[in-house]
């Protein structure tokens, strides 16, 4: 079997194959994220990225210094927002760097395209980082399998770039403990810095790594390697993270970071105790130190937890105390089907993976176990955190697949891996890019052939017929699972995670696709037909899009840093027309924008979000807004003629249903709520300015005061209503 192929020795062939497979995985990881770009066009689809896009544009146009000092007076009117100090600049800086580099090479790309394709490209890096972590934990083949999993796992696709950033430090974090090298620890700190600069989820890592170290200490597994890697990482990483203005001095002040600090101190003391013990072999010191140190750690942990993080521990906390957090759908507890939907068979192999990690309890495996347990818990609490779970799932499942091989006993671990690794990669390449897959297949078939010698040499001890059968059964099972996994992932990605929220698609009965582009229609109308300094009031979900697409001043946006201001907007929308008019004029509002899905059956509209607005407003203005008043006498959330008087009087209700029955007719139904429409809706203080094609976006102008000082109701009575 040791013959040469392409003039390469066996080991060289192996590394060539690994590189080829890894390359293919990267291609697939990129490809599977491009469904929406291909189906629709290269635009930014979600809410938050619009802000990244806008800031990147600002960064490219105005340079780094003015970006750092950027005070954005068009957001959070009239408060404004210190963008430089309230942003995680990693993504913007990265895209701006790429943009500038490409332009330096005379490749004229648009900033928008850089932003759109950044996430897919980073997913390829994720796959590579995953490979290295897998390699660290087990070996190269395991790494490949893990990379293949992560490349297509839908749980990761649903959150583009952030996930990739989170992966690198965690992989380094794990590599760290095995290496015990200050150099690697320093590099980990650099990655950690990058992750801090990219999103707030770094808190997860900075708690997990100390926890790992603490667990190792508690297990009596202190080693000098541990000291070297953790101390170096912590010192450098913490100092570096404080360079981000938004993080600032938090690492020394808030309790989220205290565990890391405490562990650092503990580690110093333990290290000193060890050092002392090498000189004086007596246990007095340790006893003394441990007592002091454990109490230190407990004190460090026992601080106050800030709201957003506290809500991680108690699923009900946010709902009770901070409605704004609970109102975000990403913050809801994860429903069970979601786990399976996002992770497929990875989910039920997880416990087995933990089991196998326990059987061979190395330092790295302790990290895996801790990571998986915590990630599983957090993923259960908040939907968005499912992404922290995804990477660890993939590692543990790789272990399963391997372990299943060794359980069958006839199959040495190496072989299962090799065989399992190939179909995973191969199947992707086939399913994704037919052309390329063919070319690679021929290459790939070499690997089983190549890895054959190792297995055949080992089972020479017991190569019985029955064992061969067992081996076949296990292999067939896992092959089937891997194929199903790929199938499922492709399907989920293309169907569930590639439908953008800016552009909607529907299919007419004959199967032709119909694009619903109301959002952009309305935003563009605002851009074209309103004064450049017009203030638009809308619920905060649409703030970033308004700023990005319509380029108009907004009162609140997705940053949600000021709960009171959001509550004020909620109060305006929830109160009756006259109060709302007065408040809106006081806030210089020129236009009010509401999203209405009753015509199309678009369920994510403002009437469905209305309860959250009421709750948030009630949290700040309990005297003016009362949630119960919006329900009917029987406690129903109704919008028709049987709705409660408060509901019918509220601005949101009026702006949504104004003139709607004229389109739907007297017997009309609201297609989202499936309720009959209210028959009479009058709006006097606001003037309908624009309604998009499918009535999804409705924009109203706040009327000026009447010239003769009359109220608008009187004017309407006098002039007559349409």
């Amino acid at each position, binding site marked *: 079997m040791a013959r040469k192929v392409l003039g390469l020795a066996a080991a060289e062939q192996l590394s060539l194959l690994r590189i080829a497979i890894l390359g293919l995985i990267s291609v697939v990881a990129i490809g599977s994220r491009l469904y929406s770009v291909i189906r629709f066009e290269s635009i930014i689809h979600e809410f938050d990225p619009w802000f990244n896009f806008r800031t990147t544009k600002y960064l490219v146009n105005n340079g780094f210094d003015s970006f750092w000092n950027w005070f954005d007076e068009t957001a959070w009117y009239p408060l404004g927002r210190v963008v430089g100090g309230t942003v995680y600049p990693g993504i913007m800086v990265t895209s701006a760097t790429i943009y500038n580099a490409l332009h330096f090479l005379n490749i004229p790309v648009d900033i928008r395209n850089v932003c759109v394709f950044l996430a897919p490209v980073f997913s390829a890096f994720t796959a590579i980082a995953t490979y290295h972590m897998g390699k660290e934990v087990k070996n190269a083949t395991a790494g490949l399998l893990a990379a293949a999993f992560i490349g297509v796992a839908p749980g990761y696709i649903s959150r583009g770039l952030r996930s990739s950033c989170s992966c690198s430090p965690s992989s380094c974090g794990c590599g760290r403990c095995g*290496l015990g*090298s200050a*150099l690697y620890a320093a590099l980990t700190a*650099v990655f950690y810095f990058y992750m801090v600069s990219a999103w707030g989820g770094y808190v997860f890592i900075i708690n997990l790594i100390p926890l790992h170290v603490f667990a190792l200490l508690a297990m009596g597994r202190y080693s000098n390697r541990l000291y070297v890697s953790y101390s170096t990482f912590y*010192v450098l990483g913490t*100092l570096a993270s404080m360079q981000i203005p938004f993080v600032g*001095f938090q690492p020394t002040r808030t309790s989220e970071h205290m565990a890391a600090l405490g562990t650092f101190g503990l580690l110093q003391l333990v290290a000193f105790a060890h050092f002392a013990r090498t000189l*004086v072999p007596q246990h007095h010191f340790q006893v003394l130190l441990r007592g002091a140190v454990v109490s230190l750690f407990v004190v460090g942990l026992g601080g106050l937890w800030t709201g957003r993080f506290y809500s991680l521990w108690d699923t009900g906390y946010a709902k009770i105390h901070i409605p704004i957090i609970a109102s975000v759908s990403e913050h809801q507890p994860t429903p069970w089907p979601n786990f399976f939907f996002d992770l497929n068979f990875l989910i039920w192999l997880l416990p087995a993976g933990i089991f196998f990690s326990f059987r061979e309890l190395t330092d790295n495996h302790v990290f895996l176990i801790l990571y998986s347990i915590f990630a599983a818990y957090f993923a259960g609490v908040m939907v968005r955190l499912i992404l922290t779970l995804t990477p660890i799932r993939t590692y543990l499942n790789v272990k399963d697949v391997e372990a299943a091989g060794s359980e069958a006993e006839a199959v040495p671990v190496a072989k299962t891996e090799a065989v399992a690794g190939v179909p995973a990669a191969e199947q992707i390449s086939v399913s994704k890019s037919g052309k390329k897959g063919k070319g690679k297949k021929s290459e790939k078939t070499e690997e089983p052939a190549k890895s054959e010698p190792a297995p055949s040499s080992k089972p020479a001890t017991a190569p019985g017929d029955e064992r061969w059968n067992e081996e076949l059964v296990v292999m067939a099972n896992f092959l089937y699972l891997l194929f199903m996994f790929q199938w499922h992932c492709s399907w989920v990605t293309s169907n569930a995670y590639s439908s953008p929220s800016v552009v909607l698609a529907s299919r007419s009965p004959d199967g032709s696709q119909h694009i619903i582009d109301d959002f952009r229609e309305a935003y563009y109308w605002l851009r074209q037909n309103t004064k450049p300094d017009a203030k638009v009031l809308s619920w905060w979900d649409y703030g970033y899009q308004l700023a990005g697409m319509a380029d108009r001043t907004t009162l609140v946006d997705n940053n949600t840093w000021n709960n009171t201001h959001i509550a004020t907007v909620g109060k305006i929308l929830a109160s009756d027309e006259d109060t709302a008019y007065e408040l809106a004029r006081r806030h210089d509002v020129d236009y009010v924008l509401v999203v209405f899905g009753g015509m199309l059956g678009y369920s994510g509209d403002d009437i469905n979000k209305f309860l959250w607005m009421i709750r948030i407003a009630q949290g700040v203005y309990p005297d003016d807004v009362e949630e119960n008043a919006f329900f009917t006498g029987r406690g129903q959330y109704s919008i028709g003629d049987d709705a409660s008087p408060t509901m019918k009087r509220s601005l949101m209700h009026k702006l949504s249903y104004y003139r709607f029955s004229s389109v739907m007719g007297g017997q009309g139904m609201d297609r989202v709520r499936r309720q009959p429409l209210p028959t009479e809706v009058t709006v006097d203080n606001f003037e309908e300015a624009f309604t998009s094609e499918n009535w999804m976006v409705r924009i109203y102008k706040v009327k000026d005061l009447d010239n003769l000082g009359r109220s608008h109701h009187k004017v309407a009575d006098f002039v007559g209503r349409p």
Partner: protein
Amino acid sequence: MSGSSAAEIVSKLAADYIDETPQKLKLIDSYMVFCVVTGLVQFLYCVLVGTFPYNAFLAGFGSAVACFVFAANLRIKNQPKERRPVLGLASRVPAFAEFVFCHILLHFVVANFLG
């Protein structure tokens, strides 16, 4: 633990240290002591006078702590053979090179943080 036994332990420790430690390590140790003293002085200043330029304090204190840690790393890797831990991949990189690399990184950050 009684006072006399503690005193014994300390004196024994000191004696063992002076006898057994190579000159090179003693040099590193004195540097580490210097780092601790620097850090303590800054901390005392912080306690007595106040934290006003907090970033400067953090940068100074952090750099003292970091210097201590890096020196400790250097020391661990320069221990006499019989005590040196198994370091795996790390042993391929010279300890001093790591020391220098970490310091470059550290002072880049610290200088930026001083403001």
